[in-house]
């Protein structure tokens, strides 16, 4: 009979094993916190905040890609984006981009403008 581990230990092991997922979650947390700060202190209009968030997201992607480039150049192994197969189903991957596209259009059309 195997030893039953706590959900926290299982989640922790999963995040250590799947570095790309950990990085994705970290980036989303930074995006959410940064977005809240930008909205409260800098951009009082949803429209301007929306564009600021697109630039912020691009900056996060740029930082991630630049880190991986540096790892490539120094022959390191700590890449933020790994080439492991995704730990979730195929349909989740297929649906992700169209759902984000739809969410962006709806937000831009009904909230930002």
């Amino acid at each position, binding site marked *: 009979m195997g030893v039953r581990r706590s959900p926290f230990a299982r989640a922790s092991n999963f995040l250590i094993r799947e570095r790309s997922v950990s990085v994705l979650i970290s980036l989303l947390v930074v995006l959410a916190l940064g977005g809240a700060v930008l909205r409260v202190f800098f*951009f009082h*209009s949803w*429209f*301007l905040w929306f*564009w*600021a968030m*697109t*630039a912020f997201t*691009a*900056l996060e*992607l*740029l930082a991630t*890609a*630049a880190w*991986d*480039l540096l790892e*490539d*150049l120094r*022959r390191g192994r700590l890449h933020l984006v790994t080439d492991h*197969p*995704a730990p979730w189903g*195929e349909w989740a*991957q*297929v649906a992700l*981009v*169209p759902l984000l*596209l*739809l969410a962006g*259009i709806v937000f831009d*059309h009904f909230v930002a403008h």
Partner: protein
Amino acid sequence: MALVGGAGGGLVALALALAEKDPGSRCPGPHNAIGAPLNLVFVGLCAAAFLAGGLLSDFARGRDDIEDAPQSARDRTWLQAVLVAVLAVLFGLLAYETYSLLLLDTNPQSSLWPITWFVRCLSTITTLSTVATLLVVGIMSAFFGKSLWYRPRTFKPRPRTR
């Protein structure tokens, strides 16, 4: 195709500028230059072209597991460098867009126009420019759908009929 689309968009802008059809002088309300239902046509076309570009690329695709040739470390590094360069350009454009919108919010007379305002005005000058703009954004959206909409290719063996 994307390069052709981008170049086409540049040529349309250049041709209109040479024909003294400066969009800035003919566009008193650039933010709302495209009204309904034309705005819905643009949004619908962009979304449809994005999805079509992604779906149609499936016909030209094979199997990840047998067709992806092993890459050398040098090739991977070059590819990563190109990705960094593209993302740097994207960040620069989005930062400019945000900055120019912020400037206009505080000073409506600002001469720094957001890129989207210029495109909105350009697309409403004449019927030809509207059609050309629709064509260009359709091509670009299809290219983005082909490149950015990731769908894993999994191999499902077909059952033999014999």
